[in-house]
């Protein structure tokens, strides 16, 4: 016969942990100026209600749709152009940073000499720096340097994604079977041909699928970067938000969702075909 337990034996520790967490988070409440009441405040709700009411129907007149189409194409073009520039930086940087083609490692069981590792650090450090600064910060900097528009977005994507792709490529080169490369290097081939015939055949599939995945991320990033003036769909969303044009915001958000969905499907298709 089951009798109800008089009390929960774990209640006290749980209570203490909760109180401790609340004490730690308390200063955060004032620092983050959290105020949910603002949302239900009379004036604000009315302004927001009017704005949201404008969401339906989404704007769909011919002129706006043409603008939307141009902005969408611009977003796609920013992502594609940025990725191709990123590849131009990432592949040489990955070759320099990777241990896979180390000559000193051939006779040392795959471990490069210490001075060889030291020589790789500048490139590794550069790649870390490039990818640690968020792409939208790069975009903001480039908007100031080269002016408003898609060029800033392309450069920002190129820089950040060069850092990410360079690191991942270097790791892929190191993770594939090292024996063909070592045999080629040991037999006296040049490092570039050892790469082309020893590493690349095994690494190409993984590289391609990661690159396509990053292209998909670049599309999302290029939409977000538009908010600091780097062109594309994001810049139009920002403009319409500032003009309180609810219908335009609604149709642009829908376009964004559709674009992300299509890019997702397309990259899945491309990866299935290429790998």
């Amino acid at each position, binding site marked *: 016969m*089951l009798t109800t337990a008089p009390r*929960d034996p774990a209640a006290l520790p749980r209570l203490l942990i909760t109180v401790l967490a609340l004490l730690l*988070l308390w*200063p*955060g*409440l004032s*620092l*983050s*100026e*959290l*105020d*949910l009441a*603002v*949302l239900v405040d009379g004036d*604000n709700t009315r*302004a*927001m209600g009017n*704005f949201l009411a404008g969401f339906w129907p989404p704007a769909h007149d011919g002129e706006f749709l043409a603008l939307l189409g141009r902005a969408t*194409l*611009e977003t*796609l*073009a*920013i992502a*594609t*152009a940025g990725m*191709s520039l990123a590849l131009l930086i990432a592949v040489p940087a990955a070759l320099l940073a990777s241990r896979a083609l180390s000559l000193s490692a051939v006779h040392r069981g795959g471990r490069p000499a210490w001075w060889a590792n030291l020589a790789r650090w500048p490139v590794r450090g550069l790649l870390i720096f490039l990818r*640690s*600064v*968020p792409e*939208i*910060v790069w975009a*903001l*900097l480039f908007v*100031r*340097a*080269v002016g408003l528009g*898609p*060029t800033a977005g*392309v450069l920002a994507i190129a820089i950040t994604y060069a850092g990410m792709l360079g690191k991942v490529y270097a790791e892929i080169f190191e993770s594939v079977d090292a024996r063909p490369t070592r045999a080629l290097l040991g037999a006296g081939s040049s490092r570039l041909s050892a790469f082309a015939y020893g590493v690349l055949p095994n690494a190409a599939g993984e590289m391609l699928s990661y690159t396509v995945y990053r292209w998909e991320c670049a599309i*999302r990033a290029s*939409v*977000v970067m538009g*908010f*600091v003036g780097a*062109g594309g769909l994001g810049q139009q*969303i*920002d403009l319409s*938000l500032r003009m*309180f044009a609810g219908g335009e915001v609604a149709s642009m*958000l829908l376009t964004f*969702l559709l674009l*992300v969905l299509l890019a997702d499907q397309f990259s899945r298709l491309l990866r299935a*075909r*290429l790998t």
Partner: protein
Amino acid sequence: MRAGNLILLAAILGAVAASFVYLGIDLGALVAGDSLAQMGKYASGFLQPDFSAAHLQAIGRGALETLAMSAIGTLLAALLGLALALPAAGRFGGVALHLTRLLLNALRAIPELVWAALMVLAAGLGPNAGTLALALHTAGVLGRLFAEALENTPREPADAIRESGGGRMLAFCYGTLPGVWPQLVAYTLYRWENNIRMASVLGFVGAGGLGQMLYVSLSLFQEAQAATVILAMLLLVLAVDALSGWARQRWVS
């Protein structure tokens, strides 16, 4: 297959070329004439970061604000996410399941920065808007993860409590929750890590924290001050990465 691959390769190269043509990017103009010198002058402004005590103090406050935004935003998101995960895991019938899933998808599909821009309109400038934006987007992500965790947890403990006469609430708290709790905490901490990064850039649309400081100092052409803010952001990101890496090795693996 061969021809197909060649066509695909040609299509990709064509798309890349078309992108450059469509955007009208003149890479030559970027390096020609005095534009390179101008960019060099702009960049050299960043080489002498401003380490004055007053500025460092402002940055410390901004960093604390960023941390607070991310922590409170993630906490709100976890609460909202759990509240939405229960119907999304099918505990209140089929209609509620589809409605909440739609809501979660919508919350998650809109990026944080767009939410922040919307919240700045709804709640005014400042960290409050950033906290709400993080809470809304993260609630979508966590709600979905929580719902999956709830679906995958074994039902037997809760059923046993129900069959021996416990209420629904008791069955959930003592039958289901202990099983999924570690997963919920792990997901929430992982999102918090993400949100610290996001919180430092949400300020670009006016939502407080380090991002707003960077935006303002760049708008005023104070490169020295901006450089310090970027350094602070880098430090914050690296510190969070190191901390979470250590915590994961210590507790999760």
